[in-house]
């Protein structure tokens, strides 16, 4: 259970075909989502310790929540590789990767214009 891939896609339906490019299928045995309700950040710095890009995921996610694009870019938010380590380790169960990913998509879309 502990050595599954961090970055997985959700199968919304059992009819989704499995192709040879899928390296693993993960089945959750219980309702993990409701067990993962986010709570307040306690500033424990675990996300900073695990981040392979030496970012501060907590501050980036805060910037996204406040819709502060400048702070996000100043703190090298675009360097994030979306590995999911910060979300995995977070004891407050914050959706750090999800928040950062969302902001990165917006930024990339703006760049293309």
């Amino acid at each position, binding site marked *: *259970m*502990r050595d*599954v891939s*961090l*970055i*997985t*896609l*959700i199968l*919304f*339906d*059992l009819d989704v075909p499995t192709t040879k490019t899928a390296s693993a299928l*993960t089945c*959750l045995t219980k*309702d*993990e*989502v*409701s067990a*993962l309700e986010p*709570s*307040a*950040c*306690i*500033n*424990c*710095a*675990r996300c*900073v310790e695990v981040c*392979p*890009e*030496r*970012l*501060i995921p*907590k*501050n980036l996610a805060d910037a996204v929540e406040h819709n502060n694009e400048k702070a996000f870019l*100043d*703190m*090298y938010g675009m*360097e994030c590789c979306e590995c*999911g380590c910060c*979300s*995995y*380790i*977070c*004891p*407050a*169960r914050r*959706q750090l*990767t*999800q928040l950062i*990913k969302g902001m990165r998509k917006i930024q990339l879309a703006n760049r293309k214009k």
Partner: protein
Amino acid sequence: MSDMKRVSSNPHVRANTTTSNIMMWVVIALLPAAGFGIYNFGPDALIILLLSVASCVLSEFIYEKAMHKRVTIGDLSAVVTGLLLGMNLPSTVPFWVPVLGGVFAIILVKQLFGGLGQNFMNPALGGRLFLVISFPALMTNFVTDTYTGATPLANLKAGADVNIMDMLIGRTGGTIGETSMLCIALGAMILFALGIIDYVIPFTYIITFAIFVGLFGGYGFNWAYISAHLAGGGLMLGAFFMATDYVTCPITPKGRYIYGFILGILTGVFRIFGSNAEGVSYAIVIGNLLVPLIEKFTIPRAFGIKKTAKKEAKKA
């Protein structure tokens, strides 16, 4: 597929550590020192600890109910605050003191600023300093049935001899939780072993303070004098349990060294040049207030960003 499924973003598997079990381990790590305090100062100490924990948990519960917020007493952070506050009180205080301190710590220092994670200073220390400033006579009365004299630190400041062995075991006067170095070290080792606190802040703090005392204490690098300063007062409790409080310490790796260094210097200044024998609480609270500034200047350079690029980015 008629039933609704709950869908979340990846990663779907999370680490087992949660806020409440981190807090639970902190409580467990504080128990040896608290237990020794009760053994040392008698049943009054137990009542003070219980009152302080109860008032913190209750005031958090009542405030959150009254404000229609999610009740978060389950994360045990109020228990940690209450226990730390109780351990920072002398065993001779009247029983309304821990209650008042707990209400102040939780409501004024923590909840009014947005609850867990948003408080700008350590709630337990905020509560303690409020009590020290308001009731100085009560808060510095360390005379009990067992100990009639001043605390070792006050003796040290007055130039009297102190017994290091007693200070190590904890058979001295002082606040409930600060006397026993051995019990505090035991608790700190639990937290180190579980990776809950890191080495940087406490050791930078203690080493800086030791060097400062050696330089400005007036006795040079005298082993006995420096170790008496290290073992005396709230330094060990402060360094391992309060300076490392997650919410009020810097999140950046470099910032932690700076924070520990500032705490060491401030504690040294307060203890040696100040009128009080104690200085740890003030140093940590002032350190807490500097944290946003420290964090602002120590944002780490992301992987792959050139050193010069950082300066240009700032100019732009």
